[in-house]
């Protein structure tokens, strides 16, 4: 029953890295269900594997073994290039350090995911404007990242994450580099995306304030969810 309304289903996920000869097991027999439309926060000590788990959900990385079903797709069965295309259509990314391309303007950064679609130039411009309006930065369209504050940069990044209308937004410590006020703005925005636009949000965070905004809090420790 949970299956039908789950947007993320992980079963028996193992992830082992190799540092030289030494294997490091980061995730072990991990199961996870994320219901469609939820806002989840993942917490846990440093090195516990939060980012690793998020990367697997977002199709950036593959588990050593286990089943990954996200937004109806079986990620394990997909090639690297299929996975890239799938990410562009299904996942919006929000990074701790914003990851805007410094040589492109806010609008050009937001437009990037649309370049992978067949939308016309005018259609793209319209969508970019809409996304920037959602984050309240329509007037900063032609500014470069270095001309924006950290909080504004992160909001541009959020506009970039939603411009393709993805089903899921993954955020790895989205407030980690921000002051309290900017962090609150970003969290309010994420909350709005969840409540008003129905986006499923999966957020890794160290910040209890941030976790509080989420509807579900999970804790990862020693490779397993508590």
């Amino acid at each position, binding site marked *: 029953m949970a299956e039908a309304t789950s947007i993320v289903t992980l079963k028996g996920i193992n992830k082992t890295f190799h540092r030289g000869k030494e294997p490091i097991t980061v995730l072990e027999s991990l199961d996870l269900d994320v219901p469609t439309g939820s806002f989840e926060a993942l917490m846990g000590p440093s090195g516990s594997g939060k980012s690793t788990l998020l990367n697997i959900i977002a199709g950036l990385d593959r588990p050593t073994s286990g089943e990954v079903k996200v937004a109806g797709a079986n990620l394990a069965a997909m090639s690297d290039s299929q996975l890239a295309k799938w990410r562009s259509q299904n996942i919006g990314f929000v990074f701790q350090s914003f*990851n805007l*391309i410094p040589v492109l303007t806010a609008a050009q950064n937001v437009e990037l995911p649309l370049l992978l679609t067949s939308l016309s130039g005018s259609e793209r411009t319209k969508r970019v404007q809409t996304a920037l309006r959602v984050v309240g930065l329509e007037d900063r369209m032609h500014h470069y990242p270095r001309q924006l504050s950290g909080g504004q940069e992160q909001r541009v990044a959020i506009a*970039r994450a939603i411009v393709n209308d993805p089903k899921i937004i993954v955020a790895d410590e989205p407030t980690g580099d921000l002051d309290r006020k900017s962090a609150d703005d970003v969290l309010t925005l994420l909350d709005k995306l969840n409540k008003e636009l129905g986006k499923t949000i999966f957020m890794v965070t160290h910040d209890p304030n941030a976790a509080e905004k989420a509807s579900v809090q999970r804790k990862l420790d020693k490779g397993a969810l508590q």
Partner: protein
Amino acid sequence: MVPFRYNVRSLFVRKVTTIATALGIALVVFVFAAALMLGEGVERALVSSSRPENVIVLRKGSDAELSSSMSQDVLGLLRGNSAVAQGEGGGVIGEVILVITAELEGKGESQISNVLIRGMPAEGMKFRPEARIVSGRAPQPGTNEVIVGKAIAGRFKGVSEGGTFELRRNRPLKVVGTFAADGTSFESEVWGDLDVIRTSVGRQASVSSARVRLNSPADFETYRTTMEADKRANVKVQREADYYSKQSEQTSGFLVGLGTVVAILFSLAAMIGAAITMNGAVAHRTKEIGTLRALGFSRIAILVSFVLEALLLALIGGVVGLAFVQLLALVSFPVMNFQTFSEIVIAFKATPNVLISALVFSLVMGLVGGLVPAIRAARVSPVEAMRG
């Protein structure tokens, strides 16, 4: 595709590195283009813009006009063939070619060099429509009047309009005009009357070479076979174009070869420079590349993007190099023509071919230098986007 302005601006942002790398490429393109321009200049000087139906006849066993000598009677044999064109500008002309030494103007007595003198019948000028008088006038046939090619006009004492110089003791030649001939080596010659010149040197009733105009280029093979088979004539028949290109190969080969070798050696350094620059760009932008990959850009898109960036970098260098090399078009210098042992003046000559070749060369450098870094970029994992 990753937008091209991403690459343009990325190059622009790293101004110093970009300029340094582009200048390295510019230097190579300069050397390469200079070598090609020299080649074009030599070719232009030696390969007359001759018509395809023109034929040059030398004594069998001679490679060049200067070493050839035939009896005047041969001209009659050459004329007696229906393939020979009649009328204005047609027919057969016999010429005598000789080299004299002359003092260079304003360089003191010890400085001498060779000047090539060509004696031709009155129809000689008509036979070469590219030749025209640019100042003074044409010489009177049957007199000791001569005209000088504009490339050497004024280089030698007395060998300029209004001057007089001695072909032999007490055999003065009077310069009455200057001519141009489309930049060919004719411009490094002195032209005068066939009979006056050959009698002055005691070569009456003989010619060095003959030029024949055929009715059609298609007549060449038959004409050649017939004439070369004629024992009385004892001649070698070649298309003018073939004769000149053989000459230019020998003379230009060394200069162009040397230039090309230098350019290729330099290009290795420039390619390594481009590779280092692009490699630095990739290393510096690992997180950006990871982000683009996370957003869904494919490995191919990243590869293409960085190759384009390297090509753009190389193209900037190429254009700068070509801009500087244009200055060489102002330079000309004398070289020894090893066929005639006389001086001809070579100018660096930029043709569309040279420009295109040089730009292609710069792009090849960009491609070779940029490929490995671009492959490295394409292999950046999207996980890099997440790293702090």
